């Protein structure tokens, strides 16, 4: 056996060894993150450290945006102003009607002894950026744990549903858009009342209405609104419009493609609906300890 001479300079472990150790560590982290979700504290810590850097990186763009806003031509502002005024007038009329309907609804519900609907509360947030992950569709918004945002709440804009908050950091939150491959929204067809579930396509920002029989009553141009049966999205929010239907009798289901109505991939302001609906508890198996959510709701306000 030939012994290798001792090295002249102490260099520590070889790069290959170090690479192996770190690669193994990375793989373990990924498995933990993808399967077990144990890494939230580490994520939170790095998020806090990165936040000032992110703010600094976003500052030039924000300043340029503000300057562009300042120099926007006067007539453009005037056009927008008159449009907004028209819209306000129209909405005011609708709002008065809504007020009357709401009162009527409360009375009817009390007559029926149904549970009163929660008054929705919401937080206005700004979309900071679309996450640069080519495999998923996520947005980062500028409100987080400090603004009492919980994972799982719905996010909408003026046109319709955008998605759902999936991860919350102290100052920012991740919103998974409805066009993400792993996102599903229970919907109802406004025209026919048919209930279904739309899934994100993940590739081109469209949605698929899956598992609809070939004979299902769906037409191009139908509007889909949330049905509210999942307890995540409040009922009646516009989600998507059917843009293409491919009926092939050889297949069990029709291929129905929808375009989201909410401003997916657009920047701007969104509304985070912070109220979780108070649904009856899911029946649990007797072997499990009692449901956790039974605690009485605290009314801080």
């Amino acid at each position, binding site marked *: 056996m030939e012994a290798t001479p001792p090295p002249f300079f102490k260099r520590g472990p070889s790069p290959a060894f170090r690479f192996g150790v770190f690669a193994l*560590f990375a793989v373990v982290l990924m498995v933990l993150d993808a399967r077990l979700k144990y890494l939230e504290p580490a994520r939170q810590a*790095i998020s806090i450290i990165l936040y000032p850097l992110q703010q600094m990186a976003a500052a030039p763009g924000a300043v340029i945006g503000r300057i562009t806003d300042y120099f926007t031509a006067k007539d453009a502002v005037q056009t927008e102003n008159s449009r907004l005024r028209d819209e306000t007038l129209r909405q005011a009329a609708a709002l008065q009607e809504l007020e009357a309907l709401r009162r009527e609804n409360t009375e009817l519900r009390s007559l029926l002894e149904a549970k009163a609907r929660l008054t929705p509360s919401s937080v206005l947030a700004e979309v900071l950026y679309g996450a640069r992950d080519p495999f998923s569709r996520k947005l980062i918004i500028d409100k987080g744990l400090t603004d009492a945002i919980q994972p799982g709440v719905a996010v909408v804009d003026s046109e319709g549903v955008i998605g759902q908050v999936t991860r919350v950091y102290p100052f920012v939150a991740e919103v998974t858009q409805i066009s993400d491959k792993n996102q599903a929204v229970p919907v109802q067809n406004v025209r026919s009342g048919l209930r279904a579930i739309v899934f994100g396509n993940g590739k081109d920002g469209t949605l698929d209405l899956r598992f609809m029989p070939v004979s299902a009553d769906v037409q191009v141009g139908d509007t889909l609104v949330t049905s509210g049966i999942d307890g995540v999205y409040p009922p009646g929010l516009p989600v998507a419009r059917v843009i293409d239907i491919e009926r092939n009798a050889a297949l069990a289901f029709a291929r129905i493609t929808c375009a989201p109505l909410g401003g997916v991939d657009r920047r701007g302001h969104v509304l985070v609906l912070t109220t979780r609906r108070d649904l009856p508890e899911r029946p649990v198996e007797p072997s499990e300890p009692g449901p956790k959510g039974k605690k009485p709701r605290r009314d801080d306000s």
Partner: protein
Amino acid sequence: MTPLARPQEILLPVTTGLIAVTVLGALMVNLVPLPLGVLAVRPDFCALVLVYWGIHQPRRVGFTVAFLLGLSIDLVNASLFGQHALVYVALLFAAIGLHRRVLNFSLVGQSLHILPLLFAGDLISIAVRLLAGDELPAPAHFAGALIGALMWIPLSVLFRLPRLPKTSPDRV
């Protein structure tokens, strides 16, 4: 013509400050919010800077730095926690392995070495995400590696500037 025949220039030594500034700068550039269409083809400057220092100063930039940088990028990109960490550690390892060879080439020849490296980094990302249950990204995503390899040339010129001797050697 042997590549080694080119006169070797004498540059100032690399300070830890320069490495820290460039790595932090790359992180900042990666953090700049851009429209999604631009983001899809933007090269990963963190990867590029790590490869640069892996090739130029293989003993100065460590795997821990690459790993933590990768975790930060994972967090900001909302990708799998550890995905970029794995890619950066692999890129640094490859860069250290190649460092004796690459610097003998001209800048164009060097960038031709960088291209397969960045491309392989993308492939690791894709393999990881396919295993995690995601689908292939849009083809435009691969343009990032190509643009990154082209960026190697201006980046090399830029990073050499702080190391130029303060005065001309002829003017003693």
